[in-house]
């Protein structure tokens, strides 16, 4: 047990170093290139950590931007430098995969506000030499996209062949299509919505309250005081994780099975497998994620309301767009249900956009976009292949 704790401790220290000195590619933006935030302040200097796979072609026409979800990061299809686990979208991205790195140049930046090397609350505030904590400005999905656009400028990529992402990543995809329509040839928003619903805000608020109720949160200044709000963050993750699954998936996976015992212990130990699973989800999450980042990123999702930025008319967000869209939802996703995707499709149709929409039958819930769903792979591969042909990207 002590040994386990030591390993966990080493991982945590590794992760914290990762916030300033990531083990991935890095673009630093100096004081001459500030990032203008929706909150009305400028962030400067700042940095964007990213991973890149494949080769940019001579026409610079084959770049695919992957936008990661709330607790994801830039390590799409390589071994994670902190956890040592495979990348989070290895089923989708890689040589011969639907997002084929033999054919496309894939870039995935860590989002603004996260904790894997792009500037966020866990990064060092240059004014104080201490982590930003709650002094970090509140950010939005649009800010994340602005930072990504600056990264692409730096990489010399004018037009993206495609932008793809699920959940919070899907929100970024939609924001990209709205903010920079001329820079996006094809857009793949998966399991997402154009705004966070009251229910989703409510779940996030529970998560944030769990973090802030942890005495070790210390008003966000836990780094300075040498503690970490692991318990609060773990509870937040446990709650959120339930929303990523479905009743049917939980029942199929765990049912009412006991964990390593035949009878209940008449205690509050993790008697049930599902309890043990959730505890594991919570404790492994805190090793790789910063509690303040969790507050900032959930807030950014809550603030997201694309229609509101366009006078309440979602269709206006996509007016005269030339971007091709492929919207995908999952039948058992109750966090971002199909009705939300249909609202996107209606708006795109009203704007005359070229849009495909598929709902995939699965009982795996919201997390289905990360899992082995052959139908999802077929659709993404088919959509991208026909778009690539239209864009004149050579087959491999």
């Amino acid at each position: 047990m002590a040994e386990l704790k030591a390993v966990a401790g080493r991982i945590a220290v590794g992760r914290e170093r990762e916030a300033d000195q990531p083990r991935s590619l890095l673009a630093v933006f100096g004081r001459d290139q500030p990032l203008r935030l929706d909150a009305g302040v400028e962030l400067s200097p700042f940095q964007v950590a990213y991973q890149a796979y494949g080769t940019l072609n001579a026409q610079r026409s084959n770049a695919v931007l992957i936008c990661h979800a709330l607790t994801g990061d830039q390590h799409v299809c390589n071994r994670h430098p902190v956890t040592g686990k495979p990348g989070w979208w290895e089923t989708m991205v890689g040589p011969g995969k639907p997002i084929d790195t033999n054919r496309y140049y894939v870039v995935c930046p860590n989002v603004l506000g996260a904790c894997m090397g792009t500037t966020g609350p866990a990064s060092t505030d240059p004014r104080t030499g201490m982590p930003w904590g709650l002094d970090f400005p509140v950010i939005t999905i649009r800010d994340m996209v602005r930072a990504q656009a600056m990264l692409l400028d730096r990489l010399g990529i004018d037009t993206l062949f495609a932008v793809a992402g699920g959940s919070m990543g899907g929100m970024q995809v939609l924001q990209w299509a709205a903010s920079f329509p001329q820079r996006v040839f094809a857009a793949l928003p998966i399991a997402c919505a154009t705004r966070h619903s009251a229910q989703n805000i409510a779940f996030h608020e529970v998560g944030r309250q769990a973090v802030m109720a942890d005495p070790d949160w210390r008003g966000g200044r836990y780094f300075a005081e040498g503690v970490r709000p692991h318990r609060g963050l773990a509870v937040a993750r446990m709650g959120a994780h339930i929303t990523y699954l479905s009743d049917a998936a939980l029942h199929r996976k765990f049912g009412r099975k006991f964990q390593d015992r035949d009878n209940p212990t008449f205690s509050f130990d993790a008697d049930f497998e599902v309890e043990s699973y959730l505890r594991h989800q919570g404790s492994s999450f805190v090793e790789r994620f910063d509690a303040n980042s969790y507050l900032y990123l959930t807030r950014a999702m809550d603030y997201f309301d694309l229609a509101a930025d366009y006078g309440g008319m979602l269709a206006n967000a996509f007016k005269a767009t030339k971007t091709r869209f492929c919207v995908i939802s999952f039948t058992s996703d109750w966090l971002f249900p199909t009705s939300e995707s249909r609202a996107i499709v209606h708006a795109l149709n009203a704007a005359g956009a070229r849009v495909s929409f598929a709902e995939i039958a699965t009982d795996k819930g919201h997390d289905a976009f990360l899992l082995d769903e052959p139908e999802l792979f077929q659709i993404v591969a088919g959509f991208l292949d026909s778009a690539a042909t239209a864009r004149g990207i050579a087959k491999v």
Partner: protein
Amino acid sequence: MAVAARGPGNARVDHLLVAEMIEPHSRVLDVGCGDGELLKLLESRGVDGRGIELSREGVNECVAKGLAVIQGDADADLADYPDDAFDYVVLSQTLQATRHPRVVLEHMLRIGRRAVVSFPNFGHWRIRLLLLFGGRMPRTDNLPDTWYDTPNIHFCTIKDFRDLCTTVGVKMERALALNAWGRPLRLHAPWWFWNLFGEQAVFLLSRREG
């Protein structure tokens, strides 16, 4: 359609007739586009095509083929499309499966300047004979479903459809009927002849001016 007659390029004959009625490079919405075969044919002719399909399998097959198809229902979802969004709205072998054919037809000519409708003719002589002598709901090679599991809830004859066009006030620009072997019937044959010998019909419709 169980066994559809095939024409040049292995395209379905009724699809070729529909495609022929559509000017190249126009914007087309195919309502009930199935596995996307007609849309593919239209796109090969330079048409900017979109589709709506009810079945999840059909949609996913279409999207995997690179077609711009969304999962939806002709009865429910046409209302969400703005006026004049398309040059043509196509309803290929789907009219008889809609709950409100009249409303669907009206929406089609609101969304598109023109509409192309193809449907199986329930006035065909074989169907008449099957009902007359068999005494049961007719089943043919092209319409193999039993009455209790068929998606086709609003069968009509060519004459019936012509009446609907008059009622709704749409202009019939062109009409064609195919016999059981997928060959077009004589162009100047009288309606009763088409209604008796046409197994399928294809209509090109437009809004009546004024």
